[in-house]
């Protein structure tokens, strides 16, 4: 940001965009942000308005920095980690206000008051297809006591998938933001060598939970394996079974979301455990955006492979010249490459086509989604905190 160019700095940083042009490119996102956050003006009280203004400045400012520096990952990460840490604060805040506890009692479940989570979607499909029933204790349409209904969340996910593909995992998934936060704490990884074969584990997990959920008519991952239950809500501990469930949630969260990301600088839960990741990776086929490696520029320095937080960019991918199907388009590898060999790309275009044009065409909708979805979560939590401080 200071404008100092180190000898090994990426070529694009040396050619950082002029301020005026960067501001011009930020205008559409600023207008979008105004449109999205203007709804807060109708909410009574000063806190929601101040929170909306702060969030607007935060999101627009980060986008300006993306334009000015031509770097994606660094600024996206600031937003994503903020989202990851503010989401549970706001969610738990609401739970405590609503029922005085993070645990969900059985009467809330049978009343359809469990907020639906997108992670449950892969488990719902087979039972819904064969029996037209959803194996989740929520409600189909929003109610006063449960605004996060199944139809609402599925619609949000479908819309996001259409726009972002697997980019959901880098611009939308608030859970990913938590581990990205812990992964970015150390400057260097304590554990450097992680066998890339571990990244096939989420595919096995996806197959297992889809089959088990269909056979048991129960959202198996949500009931037994989701690490993020530890920071959202979990079944009320009333028996040995629910005590074991709670212990599993806590252990997985501590291990996969806190300790291992800190030790490896990887998003270990996303890379080695989350079944939603591979499910979402299928949508990358729909997206016109991908990340390619220009072999004529690549020197096999492995900088990009080290930068990839989910080990999607491995030796084979670099050799093939394209990131794997599970690439979430966070931009870490593109930003890390000092030779401009790793490039944003639009399918159908030549590899020599402008990487920056492809990046811009991806970033506008991606950041618009981040502002709409993540921005509203950040603003909502900020409003609660401001109200509390006041």
């Amino acid at each position, binding site marked *: 940001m200071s404008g100092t160019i180190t000898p090994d700095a990426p070529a694009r940083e040396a050619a950082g965009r002029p301020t005026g042009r960067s501001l011009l490119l930020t205008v559409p996102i600023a207008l979008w942000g105004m449109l999205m956050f203007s709804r807060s003006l109708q909410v009574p009280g000063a806190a929601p308005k101040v929170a909306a203004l702060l969030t607007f400045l935060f999101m627009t400012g980060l986008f300006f920095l993306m334009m000015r520096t031509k770097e994606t990952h660094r600024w996206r990460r600031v937003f994503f980690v903020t989202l990851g840490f503010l989401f549970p604060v706001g969610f738990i805040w609401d739970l405590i206000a609503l029922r005085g506890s993070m645990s969900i009692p059985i009467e809330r479940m049978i009343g359809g008051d469990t907020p639906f989570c997108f992670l449950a979607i892969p488990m719902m499909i087979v039972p819904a297809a064969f029996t037209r029933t959803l194996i989740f204790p929520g409600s189909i349409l929003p109610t006063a006591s449960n605004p996060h209904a199944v139809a609402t969340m*599925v619609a949000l996910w479908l819309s996001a998938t259409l726009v972002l593909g697997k980019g959901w995992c880098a611009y939308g998934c608030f859970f990913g933001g938590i581990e990205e936060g812990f992964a970015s704490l150390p400057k260097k990884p304590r554990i450097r060598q992680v066998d890339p074969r571990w990244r096939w584990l989420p595919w096995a997990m996806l197959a297992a939970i889809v089959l088990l959920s269909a056979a048991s008519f129960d959202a198996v991952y949500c009931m037994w394996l989701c690490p993020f239950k530890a920071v959202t809500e979990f079944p009320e501990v009333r028996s040995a079974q629910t005590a074991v469930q709670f212990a599993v949630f806590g252990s997985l969260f501590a291990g996969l979301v806190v300790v291992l990301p800190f030790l490896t600088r990887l998003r270990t839960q996303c890379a080695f455990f989350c079944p939603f990741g591979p499910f979402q990776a299928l949508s990358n086929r729909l997206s016109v955006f991908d990340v390619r490696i220009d072999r004529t520029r690549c020197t096999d320095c492995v900088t990009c492979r080290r930068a990839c937080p989910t080990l999607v960019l491995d030796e084979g991918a670099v050799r093939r010249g394209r990131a794997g199907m599970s690439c979430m388009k966070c931009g870490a590898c593109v930003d890390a490459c000092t030779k401009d060999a790793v490039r944003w790309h639009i399918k159908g275009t030549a590899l020599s086509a402008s990487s920056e044009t492809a990046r811009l065409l991806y970033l506008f909708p991606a950041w618009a989604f981040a502002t709409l979805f993540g921005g509203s979560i950040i603003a909502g939590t900020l409003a609660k905190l401001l109200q509390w401080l006041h």
Partner: protein
Amino acid sequence: MRRLKAVLGYTGAVLTSVAMLVMPFVLFPLFTHGVAATGVQVDPVYGGGRTARIIARDGYRIVVNQPVRSRALLARPAPFVQLAWEPAAALPAHVADAVDLDGDGRADLIARFDVPADTTAALFVDVAPADAALRPLRHVSRDSFSSLIARVGDRIVVRVPLAR
């Protein structure tokens, strides 16, 4: 051909931005209504099943649902029948109701429970079945999805397990 592919690629990229612009106003409501229009329902193990009959009482009513049997192949919960006393505010301090589940004129069970004034207080139910298809409940609170008494909104829901 390469040029056509490139044009299609850029067209797709621009359409992605268009899709994003219309997302909150068009796509999101469209998909929400689309999901609701598929007719999918929450699993009756959670929802309690469809209403079979409604029995009027003095100042309140008992809603009897159809029996619910899980379609699970593994770890199948016990089948149950759900009854709901509503509105809870109109119930006497102690309820002892003989309930005819199937409308054949004979009581199938007698349910007894107290209704404390404190709406957060724990509830306990005793159910004495007169029908071999039903299983008794003794001082049950919220044991499982198949055996429970719980205050759900302005209703008191009782689930009586059925013999498998």
